C-alpha cells in the first residue's frame, strides 16, 4: 500500500513526461533522511512537513535545471539522473553515515485486529496513502491543470499546441512525484530500516510496478505494486531462504510481463 505511493509517483513522472528519472529514488531517500535528521529537533509533525518540502525542492531543482533541458535526449537523461542519484547517495552517506537507521514512529502503539497485532503506524500509512491517492485522482480528473497534464501524457504535441506549458507541467508532476516518494518513505521506513542504498530498492520496485501495471498508466502502477508485493510475500513464505530471492522475483515477473504483454496489465497497446 505504501510502496504504492512511491510507484504511483514514479509512474506519474514517467508517464506524463516520458522521463525515465533514475534520481527518483533520491527523492524517496532525501525525504526519509531529512525526516530522520529533523524529527528530534522540531518534532514529528513539523519534520514530516519539512521533509516533504525538502524532497520536493530537490526534485524541482533537478527537473528544472537538468532533466527538463535534456528531456528530448533520453539517453542523456538516464546518464545524468544516474549521476545525480549517485551523488545524492554519497552525500547522504557523508552526512549520516552508511549504518542502518530506523526512523521514529509517527504514532506509537499497536492495535489488535482479529487476533493480529498491527502497529498503528501501518494504519496511519495506509490511511494517508488512500487519501493521497484520492486527492491525486481528483486533481487529475477535476482540475484544469490536472487535465492538462493528462493531455500531455496522451499527446504531447497536441497538448503543447493548445497552450499547455510543458515546463510548468513537468515541474508540477515532478513535485507531485517527489511528494509521493517522500510520503512513501517517511511513512513506511519506520516499519523497516533505512540505509543510504534504500533508493535502489524503491526505484526497482517502482520500475517493476510501472512495467507490470503498464506504461503511462498511473493506476496500473498501483495495481502492479500489489501484484509484486503478494508474489514476494508468497515466495518469501514458502521457499526456504526466500528473502534472498526478492530481486529475482521482481525481475522474473517483469520479464514474463515484458515478453507476454509488453504494454502491461493496465496499459494501452501502442
Amino acid at each position, binding site marked *: 500500500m505504501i510502496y504504492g505511493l512511491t510507484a504511483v509517483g514514479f509512474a506519474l513522472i514517467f508517464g506524463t513526461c516520458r522521463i525515465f528519472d533514475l534520481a527518483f529514488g533520491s527523492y524517496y531517500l532525501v525525504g526519509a533522511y531529512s525526516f530522520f535528521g529533523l524529527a528530534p529537533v522540531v518534532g514529528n509533525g513539523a519534520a514530516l512537513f519539512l521533509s516533504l518540502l525538502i524532497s520536493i525542492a530537490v526534485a524541482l531543482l533537478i527537473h528544472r535545471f537538468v532533466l527538463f533541458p535534456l528531456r528530448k535526449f533520453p539517453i542523456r537523461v*538516464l546518464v545524468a539522473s544516474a*549521476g*545525480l*542519484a549517485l551523488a545524492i547517495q554519497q552525500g547522504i552517506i557523508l552526512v549520516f553515515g552508511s549504518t542502518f537507521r530506523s526512523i521514529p514512529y509517527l504514532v506509537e502503539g499497536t492495535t489488535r485486529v482479529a487476533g493480529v497485532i498491527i502497529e498503528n503506524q501501518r494504519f496511519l500509512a495506509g490511511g494517508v496513502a488512500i487519501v493521497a491517492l484520492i486527492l491525486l485522482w481528483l486533481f487529475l480528473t477535476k482540475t484544469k491543470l490536472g487535465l492538462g497534464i493528462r493531455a500531455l501524457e496522451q499527446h504531447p504535441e497536441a497538448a503543447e499546441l493548445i497552450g499547455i506549458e510543458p515546463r510548468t507541467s513537468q515541474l508540477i508532476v515532478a513535485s507531485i512525484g517527489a511528494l509521493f516518494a517522500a510520503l512513501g518513505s517517511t511513512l513506511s521506513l519506520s516499519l523497516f530500516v533505512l540505509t543510504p542504498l534504500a533508493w535502489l530498492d524503491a526505484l526497482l520496485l517502482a520500475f517493476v510496478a510501472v512495467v507490470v501495471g503498464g506504461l503511462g498508466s498511473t493506476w496500473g502502477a498501483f495495481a502492479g505494486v500489489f501484484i509484486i508485493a503478494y508474489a514476494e510475500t508468497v515466495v518469501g513464505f514458502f521457499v526456504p531462504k526466500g528473502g534472498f530471492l526478492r530481486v529475482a522475483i521482481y525481475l522474473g515477473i517483469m520479464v514474463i510481463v*515484458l515478453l507476454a504483454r*509488453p504494454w502491461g496489465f493496465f496499459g494501452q497497446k501502442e
Partner: protein
Amino acid sequence: MPRKFQKPSAKFLWLIVAAIFVAVPLWAPDPYFLRIFALASIFSVFALSWNLLAGYAGQISFGHAFFFGGAAYASAMLNLHSGIPPPLSIFLSAIICGVAGLILGYPCLRVKGPYFVLMTWCFPLILISAVIMYFGEIFGGDMGLSGFQGISSSSTINYYGSLLILALAVFISTVVVNSRLGLILRAVRDNEIVAESVGINISKYKILIFGLSGFIAGVAGAYLAHFNKTISPELLVVEMSLLVIIMTTVGGIGSIAGPIVGGFLVTFLDNYLGYIADVRLIIYGLAIVAIVFARPQGLLPWSPKIKLRGLGK
C-alpha cells in the same frame, strides 16, 4: 563518423601511446604505480566492452557489471574447484559470459529504451541475490571468495597481462567498428526503423554484439579477479555498472580512444583521491551531469558528435 582514427596521423598516435604503455615498467618500476596502471587498463577494457554495445549499437546497458562480476566469479570457481590455470580460466569464463550475453540478449533486445535499461539493471542484482547470497556456502556470500591463483607474483608481468587484454579489446573493437557489422550496428543505433526496412535483421546483430560485449567485459572481470586474488559481490553492485558508464561518457562514447581515456582518468582519480574517497562519488556524479549537459560527446577533443537521442520515443 569516427573516421579520424583511420588517418595515418592517428595510427601514428596510437603507436606512440602503445609504445609509452609498453615502456611504463622501464621508467616506473614502482609496484604501486604499476598496479594502478594495470587496474586502469582492466577498467578500460570493461569500458570498451560497454562502449561497443552502447556507443556503436545504441543499447544502453545499466547492468554491465553482470558480465564483469560474473566472469570474475566464474573464473575464480573454475580455478578453485577444477584447478584450471588462470589464463585458461579467464578465457573460459569470458566464453561463458559471451554465451550468457547471447542468451540474455534474446529477451533483452526484444524490449527497447527504458525497458532495456531496466532489464539489464536487474541482471547483476539477480546474480547477487539469487546465486551468490542464496548459495552462500558455495559462493562465499557477502565475504566473497579468495584463495585462488593470481596471474603472477611479478607486478611487471601482471601489468603486461593487463596491457595484453587492453590491446586485444582495442583490436576487437577496431575490427568490429570498421567491418560491415560495425556499419550495420551504427545504422541500427541511428535509425532502427530504417535499418530494419532495408532488410537488416536487427535482432540478430544486436544479440551478436551483446554476446561480444559480454565476452570482452568477461575478460576484464576475470582478469581483475586473478589480479586481486579476491572477489566479492562488490563487483556486481549498481555502482560498478554506473562506473563503466561514467568512464565511457567522460572519455567519449562512441569512439575507441574515449573509453580508454575515461578508464585511465577515473582509475587514477580513484587512487589519488584516496583521502577524500567519501566525496569521490559526489564528484563523479556531478561531473557526469556537467559532461552530459555541456559536452555529451565526451572530453576528447576529436570525439564524434553522435546523436544520443535514439532511445525510447
